[in-house]
C-alpha cells in the first residue's frame, strides 16, 4: 500500500536511492492507495552513491512506477506474491519511458504490458508471468477427481464496477 509520504526504494541505476511519494496518479475512490503498477509523483530523498553519473539528484521531483510491493493485491488465480521491499523505478515526465538504463531486482509481472513493455524487458527477472482468465486444459499429471465443468457464465456488468477490487493477474 503506497500513499503520500511513503518512502520507496529505487530499483534502477538512475542515481536515486530512495524516493518519497508525493502523489498517486490516476487515483480513484475504489483504489485510494497505490500498489504495484501505480504511477506516482515522487521526490528523491537520497542519492545512490554507487552510481557515478546520476540522472537524478536529491530534491528533484519525478514520476515513478511501483514495481515491487511488500503487499501485492490478490491475483486472479487466488495467490499472492510478496517481496521484501517496496520499490519503484523512475520514469520521465510523460511517464512513457524509464529514466534509467538498468533495473535491479525482480519486477512484478502484474505491470501493464502495453504501457510498460520497456520496463518489463529491462528487468532481468519478472515475477509470476501472467495467464489472466486462462483455464488450463486438463492434464494427466496431478489429475482432478473429475474434470471440472465449464465455468458458469458471468453476468455482464452494465455499469461501472463500483466497489470491485481491481485484481492483477
Amino acid at each position, binding site marked *: 500500500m503506497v500513499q503520500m509520504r511513503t518512502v520507496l526504494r529505487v530499483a534502477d541505476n538512475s542515481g536515486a536511492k530512495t524516493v518519497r511519494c508525493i502523489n498517486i496518479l490516476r487515483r480513484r475512490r475504489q483504489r485510494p492507495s497505490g500498489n504495484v503498477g501505480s504511477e506516482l509523483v515522487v521526490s528523491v530523498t537520497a542519492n545512490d552513491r554507487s552510481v557515478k553519473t546520476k540522472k537524478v539528484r536529491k530534491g528533484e521531483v519525478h514520476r515513478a512506477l511501483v514495481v*515491487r510491493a511488500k503487499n501485492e493485491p490478490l491475483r486472479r*488465480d*487466488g*495467490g*499472492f*506474491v*510478496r*517481496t*521484501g*521491499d517496496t520499490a519503484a523505478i523512475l520514469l520521465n515526465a510523460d511517464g512513457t519511458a524509464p529514466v534509467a538504463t538498468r533495473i*535491479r*531486482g*525482480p519486477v512484478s509481472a502484474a505491470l501493464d504490458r502495453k504501457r510498460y513493455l520497456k520496463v518489463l524487458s529491462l528487468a*532481468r*527477472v519478472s*515475477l*509470476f*508471468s*501472467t*495467464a*489472466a482468465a*486462462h*483455464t*488450463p*486444459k*486438463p*492434464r494427466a*499429471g*496431478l*489429475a*482432478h*477427481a*473429475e474434470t*471440472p*465443468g465449464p465455468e458458469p457464465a458471468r453476468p455482464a456488468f452494465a455499469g461501472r464496477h463500483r466497489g470491485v477490487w481491481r485484481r492483477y493477474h
Partner: protein
Amino acid sequence: MDFTVQKKSNIISQIEKNFFKQNIPNINVGDSVKIGLIIQEGNKERTQISDGVIISKNNAHLNTTITVRKVLQNIGVEKVYLIHSPRIISIEVTRKSKVRRAKLYYLRQRSGKATRLKQKFI
C-alpha cells in the same frame, strides 16, 4: 447435486470435491519444492517452474495454500499458491528439512548461511 436442507459445510464439500486433486505429494513446511505452473504466452501454454522453501502451509480443504520463499537478486520473494489450482500442474519435493515450527517466518530476518535448514533423510 442435492440441495435439500443440509448443513452448509456438506453443501460446500459436495461442490468442492469436483476440484480436489488426488495425487498431490506429501508436502510439509521446510521442504524445498519445485512448482510447475502453466502460463500463457500469446496462444501457447508453457510450463514455468519456480522453486523455493515452503515456509507455511495453511490447511483449508480446497483452499489449502503454501507459501514458498526464495531469494531473487538479494530480494526475498514469497509466493502463495493454492495447491489445488488448475494452474499448478506439478509439485516436486526436492529436499525435506527437519524443522520444529509450523511456520518458518523467522527466515525472513535471516540471510545466507543462517537460512540453511537441517536436512531430513527418509
